[in-house]
């Protein structure tokens, strides 16, 4: 496709590719070079012409790399003879411009330099692109003979080869710098990076090379090379004074060949006015969490025509190399930090009084600490390579606990248990085991680490306490049985025959015997729950009938308090609970509610069913609970109405028991109240699924 320009010279078919090839030569706007000037001098002499040029045809202009007899640096492409030449491989000769309709009206013909004769041979790169010409010009008409044409063609060939070799030497220089950087002999990463910066600064002819770390709007110089008295490693600047934003936005190499609005916009200064960044090359560095930049800059503008592709490529490659070097360095630092931490941790593990045992993936012991050998009585080499369970468990070890542990291990899950183990000498001891799966760096299961704490003493005290509770309760209940039986009988059989006063004494004794029974019962309950020995039989329970029964149980008590009980219809919700304990909880809440409610009022029970749980409410119309007492309500032996002597006093354990029972059944209990407006106690229990009993 040929496009006709203003003077009629069509663009070459490969114009785009041609311009790219010209760019890559990095020769436009460079200083004169003797290696080209010698050709134009020889051409002018050989052809005996006043003007000889090496021209390069750019997109909009032709630029003269070398010129004899002409003061112009460049001309408009539209006025150019050479743009006609580059359309073919052949020499173009115009013997007399005034005779040629293409050039008759050309400004360079009608005005200075008054061209009458023109002969140009294309400069052809190895890729076939014709980027310019070697041309000779005279101010009078003439004609080249065959030999002269051959000379012109040969000389153009030589100029072309010079172009190619010039470009190659640029690449070579870049490559050699890079290879020197990569082959840096410095072993330490920091020294290698500094050496690389120095080499790159030399190559780029820029005095400043900086590797920086940017974090929280702070730009910290990690490593630099700079003229003495300017920058130092560790200097910190606000990142807004730097060009890091631009570089990151650019994502690859950002190049600012000379100061302009962008640099001035940033103050044009780097480092609190110490250094002017007139020309700049920067590339982002990202290694894991480390964000930074590699940049080179100079207080001088980059000489025309700006940075070469090679320079950009060098900075890009060096950025990649620096990322690699940083990565290795950071990794190295992390490894060292890890090692320090590991050393500390292993000291802790070795020296702690707790037993620490590590098993492999197969469950066999691979490591134990001194604490473990002391607790178990076995030496490390007796334990390593064996399974902990086999060696340490014995007759009294709880089989259910062992089974739970076995399942947790099979599922590779963490667990906490208390277990009775056996010392090498045969004595049992209790340990609390906290065991966690171990994973390697890639998250693969590697085994378990268990920390064992000797809790024998605590267990011994617990057992003593339980035994004490058991014995005391038995010893208390037996006489209580006959006291109550005797009193009840007396009251029942002779009560009506006694006078008012004697009857009162007897009733008092009966009431207090009942109170004592409840106290013993509550204490036992709490003791059992606290020691985890309360066996709960959790099954789906139909809520409404159970509430109904609990209310029937308390009907008489409520009547005694002058209170009526009301159950709001509650549907057929079924909860997961121990029926007996649930009834106990409801009973406690009901008797509390009756006790505190005003005579003539009512206690209301209702149920709200949510998707996962049921909430049971018990509302009274008593004095309510002040907010500041909230924290004490569920504590043991707390009676907020200690002054109330009107009614039978409770044991102060009822709500504490409710709390323990509800929690043991997987629920929660709480209350809402405002003084003077009564309270609503409520507790949640999980709903039973569809698959019933």
């Amino acid at each position, binding site marked *: 496709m040929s496009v006709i320009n203003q003077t009629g010279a069509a663009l070459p078919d490969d114009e785009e590719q041609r311009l790219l090839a010209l760019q890559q030569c990095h020769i436009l706007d460079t200083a004169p070079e003797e290696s080209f000037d010698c050709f134009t001098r020889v051409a002018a002499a050989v052809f005996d012409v006043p003007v000889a040029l090496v021209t390069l045809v750019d997109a909009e202009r032709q630029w003269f790399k070398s010129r004899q007899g002409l003061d112009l640096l460049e001309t408009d492409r539209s006025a150019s003879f050479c743009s006609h030449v580059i359309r073919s491989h052949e020499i173009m000769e115009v013997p007399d411009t005034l005779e040629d309709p293409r050039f008759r009206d050309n400004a360079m013909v009608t005005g200075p330099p008054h061209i009458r004769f023109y002969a140009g041979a294309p400069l052809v790169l190895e890729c076939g692109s014709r980027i310019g010409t070697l041309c000779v010009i005279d101010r009078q008409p003439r004609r080249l003979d065959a030999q002269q044409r051959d000379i012109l063609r040969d000389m153009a060939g030589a100029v072309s080869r010079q172009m190619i070799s010039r470009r190659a030497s640029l690449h070579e220089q870049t490559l050699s710098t890079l290879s020197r950087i990569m082959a840096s002999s410095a072993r330490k990463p920091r020294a290698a990076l500094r050496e690389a910066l120095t080499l790159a600064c030399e190559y780029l002819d820029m005095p400043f090379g900086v590797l920086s770390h940017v974090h929280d709007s702070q730009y910290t110089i990690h490593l630099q090379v700079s003229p003495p008295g300017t920058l130092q490693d560790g200097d910190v600047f606000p990142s807004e004074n730097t060009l890091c934003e631009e570089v990151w936005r650019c994502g690859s190499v950002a190049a600012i060949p000379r100061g302009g609005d962008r640099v001035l916009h940033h103050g044009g200064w780097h480092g609190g006015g110490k250094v002017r960044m007139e020309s700049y090359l920067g590339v982002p560095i990202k290694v894991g969490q480390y964000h930074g930049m590699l940049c080179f800059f100079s207080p001088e503008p980059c000489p025309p025509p700006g940075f070469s592709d090679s320079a950009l490529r060098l900075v890009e490659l060096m950025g990649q190399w620096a990322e690699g070097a940083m990565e290795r360095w950071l990794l190295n630092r992390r490894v060292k930090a890890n090692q320090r931490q590991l050393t500390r941790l292993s000291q802790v593990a070795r020296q702690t009084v707790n037993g620490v045992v590590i098993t492999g993936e197969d469950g066999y012991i691979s490591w134990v600490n001194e604490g473990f050998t002391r607790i178990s009585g076995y030496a490390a080499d007796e334990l390593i390579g064996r399974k902990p369970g086999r060696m340490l468990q014995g007759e009294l070890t709880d089989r259910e606990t062992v089974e739970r542990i076995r399942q947790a291990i099979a599922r590779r899950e963490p667990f906490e248990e208390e277990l009775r183990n056996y010392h090498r000498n045969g004595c049992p001891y209790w340990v609390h085991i906290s065991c966690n799966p171990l994973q390697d760096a890639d998250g693969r299961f590697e085994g378990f680490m268990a920390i064992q704490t000797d809790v024998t003493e605590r267990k011994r005290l617990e057992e003593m306490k339980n035994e004490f*509770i*058991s014995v005391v*309760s*038995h010893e208390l*209940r*037996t*006489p*209580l*049985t*006959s*006291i*109550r*039986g*005797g009193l*009840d*009988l007396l009251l*029942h059989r002779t009560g009506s025959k006694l006078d008012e006063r004697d009857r009162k004494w007897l009733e008092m004794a009966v009431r207090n015997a009942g109170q004592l*029974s409840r106290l*013993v019962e509550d204490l*036992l309950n709490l003791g*059992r729950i606290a020691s985890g*020995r*309360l*066996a709960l039989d959790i099954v789906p329970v139909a809520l409404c009938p159970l509430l109904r029964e609990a209310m029937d149980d308390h009907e008489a008590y409520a009547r005694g308090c002058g209170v009526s009980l009301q159950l709001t219809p509650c549907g057929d919700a079924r909860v997961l609970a121990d029926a007996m304990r649930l009834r106990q909880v409801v009973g406690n809440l009901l008797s509390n509610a009756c006790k505190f409610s005003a005579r003539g009022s009512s206690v209301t029970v209702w149920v709200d069913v949510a998707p996962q749980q049921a909430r049971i409410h018990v509302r009274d119309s008593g004095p309510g609970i002040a907010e500041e007492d909230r924290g004490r309500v569920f504590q043991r032996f707390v009676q907020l109405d200690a002054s109330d002597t009107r009614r039978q006093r409770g044991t102060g354990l009822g709500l504490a028991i409710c709390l323990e029972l509800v929690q043991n059944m997987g629920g929660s209990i709480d209350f809402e109240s405002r003084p003077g407006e009564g309270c609503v106690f409520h507790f949640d229990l999980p709903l039973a699924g569809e698959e019933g009993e």
Partner: protein
Amino acid sequence: MSDALCVLYAEDDTDIREVVSFVLEDDGFQVIECRDGREAVLQGGHCSPDLILLDMMMPELDGLMTLERLRQYPSLARTPVVFMTAKVDEGEIRRYRSSGAVEIIRKPFDALDLPATLRAILEKTRRKQ
């Protein structure tokens, strides 16, 4: 008198035994009172009660051992048994329950309610048979 319900009752605590016996007899039960398990085993050979009522913790022969021996008399092989206890050990209570006891009454209990409780138990076991 022949349609009075008969209870074989063993309890080592004299006070409780007296109260319980009195309450039951007052309600029309016939009570064969034993001071411990050994005496119950001796008495068991001569009677065929409607119900056996045993304290769990007694010297020499505890409730369970006593029951084991009583069961060897063909006439007592299927008699419903009720235990009474002041013990709290859930494990032990489970053990007693699994021995075939129809009820375990925890001390202290309401003595006046005992006759009704026992009648209800008997009614229930009869219906089952």
